[in-house]
Every structure is written in structure tokens, then in C-alpha cells.
């Protein structure tokens, strides 16, 4: 930078926040001034016994790890189910115990586990609990006790779900959307105990999540530390916050549909059940509407996609910024894009129902809103790419996963535009194209972020680094493998292979799809097994990993700036931190180092050309 540049450099006026400038009589001469604390210190319950410290723990960090491990356990179950499905599709009748009934049960449980019990719980329960108090500078969540109950409700929900594998008839096989009338009628696997346990488990999940969600929202809104304005929060927090807000408004629809279907099953009410003739016998149902269930389900189901995606967007923004040593391009735009996507996600649900026989004008409306969502989403992708442009990129495992995320997300996003149009969707509906689309966009893409985030924050949680060498092997196996699974599925969809079919029998697809299906199955097995590298890496690094020390990535955000690493209960020792800037001051011209932490006061970086935040 030239000397002239430095001369333009006016002293900073960054007091605690922009809003302060209007206030009367504040000592604004002092550039390090931050408004005094307005919330009293939080009293924490410190556990003393093993049970209160590690089991019924009220520390959000431990609860986060508990959520994480439970969710990963369900994720492994989901992974194994997907293997079994792939075995059947690639090599029909190779495994004798996979009958058509079992296949449908695997499909259903795989879908429900991965979407709700794995991804939602992992992002919001796991990362949310661990990161929110640390990143906004709070001592803990605002209601630690409720937070603890939230985890145990989730745990019970998982137990009920897993119990459905062991009841007579097995788990439900209605498909993860649980559409009535077939979900609760004989002929569908698990139409008795299976579906009932599924509905109970979902209701418990919603109740538990509501408790957690209230904590996340209120911690972010009402328990930030001094100087932490909303527009100085890391994008991770924005993503988690918006996703939680969506969940608070979308899960009610799921709860209501679960209650109504439970009544349809147990009391033979006819909320969703029309008149049905079964094996020549008229059932007692009459006059209900199956499409009503679809509306309720997708009013939950579509925001659910963004409940998974928005935290991923937020986290990946932070990872890219830190590992590209550059501020995130268009921070405010990123925030508004997250909020905009969240808002719009409530007006697109019926694009899942183009073939349900609803009024065509409805489809017109929902196609329009669906395509509008592509605007803020594309904006985010451009911003990630511009952030990487001419950046000082560290090509480590975390960055590789971020790049993998961008590629898979763009791929899945573009196929989303195909499917958002009614005329294109109708022929592609219920084919493997749809499978390819949503696994790319809300399966692989968020998983890339989760894995990147684990490599990034593992040193914070455990104090040790993960092995880079194993990490890169893990990345390439996962990325290339996942691509080999889902990319060919687009082709399968185009030639018309229907999803959810147990076997193709002698259909004309068989000849061209058989080889492809075998290839996909092999890829799925390899990707699944390559996760053992990840698990091995985590387990060994706990013991022999390189000690991380403080702030190993030279990041700016608060979670790395705790007095103890890994952070202890209460997070901040004696005094809460004071924030002077956003977390993206990387490579600031005129600064001594390539990063300026959020707690560095303006008087220490007087010559640096920092953003005014």
C-alpha cells in the first residue's frame, strides 16, 4: 500500500456500536469506549458429582457434545440402512433377508433419521449448543436447565425411534414422508406399532427441540456480551439463529400432523383418511383429506431443508473466511440472504406436491416463489467464490471440505431449479433425479460442512489437532465417492428409473441401469467404509494428536479467545470479553499481523485500515 493510502486513514470511530453515536453525553472521545453491561451476571449451576457434571449436565458445551455423539450414532444407523438399500438395488437378491418389506422400512428409517435425527440435531443441537454461547460471549445458554432437558427429550426420542426396529412388524415402511392413507393401513410394513412409535418419537423430538430452540434464540438475542451487535456476530450464529427461528415455526405443523395421524390410527378418526375399500371391505374411515397431510407435512418439510442448510451456509462462510485469510465478501448481504432464504422458505412448500393433484395455479405460484429463492442462494455462492478470489488460501482439510461443499451445493442447487419448474418436475417426479438432487443439496453439501467443521473445531473441543494426512485421505474418498454415488443418479432419473422401487424386475430400464446401479452400490460401500478413517482419526487424535494450543488457526472469533483452552464451564473466567469489531478482520492493511481478533481494542490497531463494523 502506498503512503497516500495511509494518510487517508482516519482514526477509528468504532465505539461499541453505530447506534451509540446518537446518544447524548457519552464519553465518545475514548475510542475504546464500550457501553457498560446491561445484563446482570448469570449464575451457573456447577455440577459436583459425575451425574450432574457429565450426564445431566447443564453446561451447553457438554450438552453440545452429547447431542453431537447421539446424532452421529443415529447417522451411522442411517448409513448402514443406506448400504442395505444399495445392496438390494445393485445386486438384487444377493442378501436374502432384504425383502420388499424390509427395503421400504430401510428407506423410511434412513430418510427420517438422516433429515431429522441426524442433521437437524447435529447442526442445531450439536454445533448450536457448543458455539452459540462461545461465539456471542455468554457464559452459557440462558436456561441451562431447560437445555439439559432438551437433550434428554431428544435422547428419549431417539430411543423410541430405535425401539421401533424391535417391535412386532418392525419400523414403519411408509416412506419418510409418511403419507396417509397408506402409512397406517395394513399392507404397509410397520403399519401398527412401527408408525405409532415413529409419530411418538417425532412428537418428542419437537417438544425437546422447542426447549433447545428457545435457548438458542434468546441467548443470541438477549445474552450477547458488551460490544457484540447483531451485525458483528459470526455468520455461523446467523445461520443457526435463522434456522432455529424456522424450526420454531415449522415444527408445529409436524407436531399437529403427528397428533392427527396418531388419532387416525388409534381412534379411527378420519382427518386424513377418505373412504377406503380394502379387500372388498369398506373401512370405517370417511371424508378425510390425504392432501391436507401433505400440506401440513411440507409446511414443516420445506423449512426443514433450510433448517439443515442455513447453519451449513453460516459455518462454511466462517471456515472459508478463516482459511482463506480474508474477510467474507459482502457480510451484510450474506446476513440478509440467510434471513431472506429463511423467510421465503415458508412460501414454497407445495413444490413438493406438484403431482398431488392440486390446482395448477397453485403450482404456478409455488414455482415462482421457489425460483425466487434461487436469488439469495446464488448470491451466497458468488460471495463464497469472491471471498476465495485472490485470497491467501490455506489448502488444508478444512478448506478442501469447504470447496467440496461449494461444488456439491452448486450441483444440487442447479438441479433444484430444474425441479422447481412444474413442467420439468412432473416427468422427473419420483425418479432418481430427485434423489440425486436432494442428496447433493441437503445430504452431501451439509455433510461436507459438518466434516470441515469437525476438523476446524476439534482443536477447540479437545485441545488436539486432527491428523491432516488422514484428513486429506478422508476428504478425497468422501468427496469423489459421494460424487460417484449421486452424479450417475441424475442419468438414472433421466432414463426414468423410479425411486422407492424395490427391484426393477424385467422393466426396460434394467439393461441400461444395471451396470450403473452396481457401480453406485460399490461407491456407496467405499464411501461408507472410508468414514472409518475419520473415526480412526478422531479416536487416535484424542490421545496422540498434536497439542493445539491457543487459537491454532489464527481465527478472530470469540470461541478461540477463551482464557482456558478447551473452554471450561462458564467459558470466560473472571470477566466477560468485550468486543470491538466483527470476526473477519483478516489481512487488514497496516495491521501488524494478518488477523485482528474481535477483542482487540481500536487503540491497538490505530494504523490499520479496518472495516467499520
Amino acid at each position, binding site marked *: 500500500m502506498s503512503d497516500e493510502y495511509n494518510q487517508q486513514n482516519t482514526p477509528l470511530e468504532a465505539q*461499541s*456500536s453505530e*447506534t*451509540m453515536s*446518537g*446518544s*447524548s453525553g*457519552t464519553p465518545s472521545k475514548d475510542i475504546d469506549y*464500550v*457501553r*457498560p453491561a*446491561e*445484563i446482570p451476571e448469570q*449464575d*451457573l*449451576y456447577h455440577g459436583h458429582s459425575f451425574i450432574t457434571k457429565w450426564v445431566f449436565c*447443564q453446561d451447553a458445551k457438554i450438552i453440545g457434545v452429547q447431542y453431537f455423539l447421539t446424532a452421529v450414532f443415529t447417522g451411522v444407523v442411517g448409513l448402514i440402512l443406506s448400504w442395505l438399500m444399495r445392496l438390494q438395488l445393485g445386486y438384487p437378491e444377493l442378501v436374502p433377508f432384504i425383502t420388499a418389506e424390509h427395503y421400504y422400512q430401510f428407506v423410511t428409517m434412513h430418510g427420517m433419521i438422516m433429515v431429522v435425527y441426524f442433521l437437524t440435531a447435529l447442526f442445531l443441537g450439536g454445533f448450536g449448543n457448543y458455539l452459540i454461547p462461545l461465539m456471542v460471549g455468554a457464559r452459557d445458554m440462558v*436456561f*441451562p*436447565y431447560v437445555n439439559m432437558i432438551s437433550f434428554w427429550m431428544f435422547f428419549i426420542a431417539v430411543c423410541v425411534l430405535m425401539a421401533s426396529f424391535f417391535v412386532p412388524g418392525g419400523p414403519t415402511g411408509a416412506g419418510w414422508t409418511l403419507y396417509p392413507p397408506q402409512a397406517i393401513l395394513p399392507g404397509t410394513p410397520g403399519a401398527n406399532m412401527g408408525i405409532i412409535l415413529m409419530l411418538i418419537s417425532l412428537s418428542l423430538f419437537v417438544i425437546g427441540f*422447542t426447549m433447545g*430452540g*428457545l435457548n438458542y*434464540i*434468546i441467548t443470541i*438475542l*438477549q*445474552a*450477547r*456480551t*458488551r*460490544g*457484540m*451487535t*447483531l*451485525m*458483528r456476530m459470526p455468520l455461523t450464529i446467523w445461520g443457526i439463529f435463522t434456522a432455529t427461528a424456522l424450526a*420454531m*415455526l415449522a*415444527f*408445529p*405443523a409436524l*407436531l*399437529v*400432523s403427528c*397428533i*392427527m395421524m396418531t*388419532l387416525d390410527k388409534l*381412534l*379411527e*378418526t*378420519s*382427518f386424513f383418511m377418505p373412504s377406503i375399500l380394502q379387500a372388498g371391505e369398506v373401512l*370405517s374411515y*370417511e*371424508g*378425510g*383429506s390425504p392432501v*391436507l397431510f401433505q400440506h*401440513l407435512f411440507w409446511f414443516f418439510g420445506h423449512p426443514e431443508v433450510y433448517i439443515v442448510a442455513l447453519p451449513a451456509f453460516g459455518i462454511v462462510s466462517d471456515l472459508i473466511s478463516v482459511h482463506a485469510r480474508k474477510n467474507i465478501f459482502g457480510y451484510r448481504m450474506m446476513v440478509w440472504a440467510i434471513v431472506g432464504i429463511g423467510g421465503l422458505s415458508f412460501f414454497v412448500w407445495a413444490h413438493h406436491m406438484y403431482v398431488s393433484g392440486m390446482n395448477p395455479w397453485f403450482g404456478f405460484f409455488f414455482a415462482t416463489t421457489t425460483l425466487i429463492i434461487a436469488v439469495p442462494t446464488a448470491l451466497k455462492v458468488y460471495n463464497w467464490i469472491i471471498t476465495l478470489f485472490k485470497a491467501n488460501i490455506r489448502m488444508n482439510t478444512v478448506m478442501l471440505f469447504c470447496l467440496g461443499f461449494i461444488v456439491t451445493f452448486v450441483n444440487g442447487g442447479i438441479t433444484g431449479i430444474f425441479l422447481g419448474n412444474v413442467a420439468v418436475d412432473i416427468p422427473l417426479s419420483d425418479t432418481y433425479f430427485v434423489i440425486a438432487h436432494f442428496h447433493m443439496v441437503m445430504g452431501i453439501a451439509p455433510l461436507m460442512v459438518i466434516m470441515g467443521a469437525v476438523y476446524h473445531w476439534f482443536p477447540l473441543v479437545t485441545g488436539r489437532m486432527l491428523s491432516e494426512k488422514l484428513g486429506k485421505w478422508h476428504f478425497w474418498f468422501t468427496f469423489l465417492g459421494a460424487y460417484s454415488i449421486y452424479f450417475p443418479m441424475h442419468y438414472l432419473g433421466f432414463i426414468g428409473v423410479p425411486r422407492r422401487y424395490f427391484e426393477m424386475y424385467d422393466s426396460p430400464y434394467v439393461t441400461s441401469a444395471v451396470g450403473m446401479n452396481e457401480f453406485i452400490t460399490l461407491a456407496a460401500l467405499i464411501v461408507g467404509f472410508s468414514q472409518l478413517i475419520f473415526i480412526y482419526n478422531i479416536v487416535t487424535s484424542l490421545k496422540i494428536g498434536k497439542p493445539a494450543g491457543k487459537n491454532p488457526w489464527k481465527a478472530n472469533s470469540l470461541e478461540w479467545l477463551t482464557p482456558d483452552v478447551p473452554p471450561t464451564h462458564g467459558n470466560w473466567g473472571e470477566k466477560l470479553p468485550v468486543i470491538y469489531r466483527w470476526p473477519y478482520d483478516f489481512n487488514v492493511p497496516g495491521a501488524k499481523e494478518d488477523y485482528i481478533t474481535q477483542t482487540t481494542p481500536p487503540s491497538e490497531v490505530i494504523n490499520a485500515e479496518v472495516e467499520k463494523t
Partner: protein
Amino acid sequence: MSDVKIEGFELKPGFKGMAEDTGSDQTMFKGVQWGKVMMWIFLLSDTFVFSCFLISYMKGRASTVVDWPNTSEVFSLHVGSVPVPLLLIAIMTFVLITSSGTMALAVKYGYEKNRKMCGWLILATAIGGLTFVGMQVFEWSKLIHEGVRPWENPFGAKQFGSYFFMITGFHGFHVSIGVIFLFIYAYKTFAGHFDKEKRGWFTTMKGGYVEIEILGLYWHFVDLVWVFIFAFFYLW
């Protein structure tokens, strides 16, 4: 509690003030306790639950194949031998709305630290709620006696019974939870827990009269939901 004083921050009225609060550090809702924000956001979520129920009900009622029963007949009470439509429901609504009034007064006396008055008013609210639930039990048993069930309805569309028992049941469940907490809070008020800032069980958070306001928010919400249920079930 509108007159909050926060050091170094001037609370401004109107939209501008809201924008400034949003842009400031630490808290978005200045001087509002965590528990109170929690209740508001929980109620927002609960609003969606009831909205889903009521919208499903409207859809169900609009698309039944059999006629919906005539509500002014089904819900009428016989006084002597004259059927009076909406009699019971008018009394129920009156009781519930009155209990909202006593709840509001309890909040006022609570903030004035008038422990006795506050406690009695909470107790009055609880009894109002209990009366409401009792009358609902009466109404349910009357309908059940006449043959209405969740799965069948002698007066017309099946869905009448299903939606009626489900939605009023869900609302009644809310009222019952409220009544239980009202009794607990009446006890806590009389025992002086809020004056002494006694800490909660397992949580170490200090108690205070704001908790009564939080409970009040819930209670008013339950009343408001009843107004909608009343309108949609009994007046439509």
C-alpha cells in the same frame, strides 16, 4: 414494565427506537428479562400449533361429504324444555375472560409487592381456570352421552367429533397445565418466594415477580386461543 433505565443508552420511542435497539449490542429487547422473551417466542410457536389445528379444521369442515351438524342445536342447553343455544359456552367464555382480568390484576399487585393481594388473585385465576375445565368436562360428557365420538357423530359429518374433541382437548390441556402452574405460583407467592428472590430448583436463577407476568402471558394466550376456537366452532 415500560420505563426501563439502562446506563449509557437512551431508549427512544417508535420505529426509530426499535431500529436502534436492534442495532445495539448485548440485548435486542432492552430491559426485558430472558424468561419473558422466552415465553413470547414460545407463544409464537404455539400460535402456529393452534393455527395448524384450526386451518386443518376449516379445511376438514369445508370438504366433508356429509353435512356439518347445526352448531346452535348441538351446543344448546335445555333450560326447562326450551333449548338455549350457546348458553354453556357463553358462561365458559365469560369465566375464562374474567380469569384473564384477575390475572392482569395479580401481575399489577405483584409488581407493587403486594404479596397477599397478588396471591389471592392468582388463586382466583386458578379457580376460574378450574371452573372452565370443569364445564368443558360437562360439555364433553353431554356430547358423549348423545353419541358423539371422535370416530362417529350421529348429527352429521364424522369430522365434527374428531376436530371438536381434538382441538378443545388440546386447548383444555393447555388450560389444565396453566391451572397447575397457577396453583404452584399462588403457593410460591404466599410463601414469599418472590420477595426473597428464592432460587429455582436446580437452576440457581433468582426468582422475582416477573415470573407472575410470564405466567400471565401464557394465561392470556390461552384465553385468546379460546376466543378463536369459540368463533370457529360455535359461531360458524
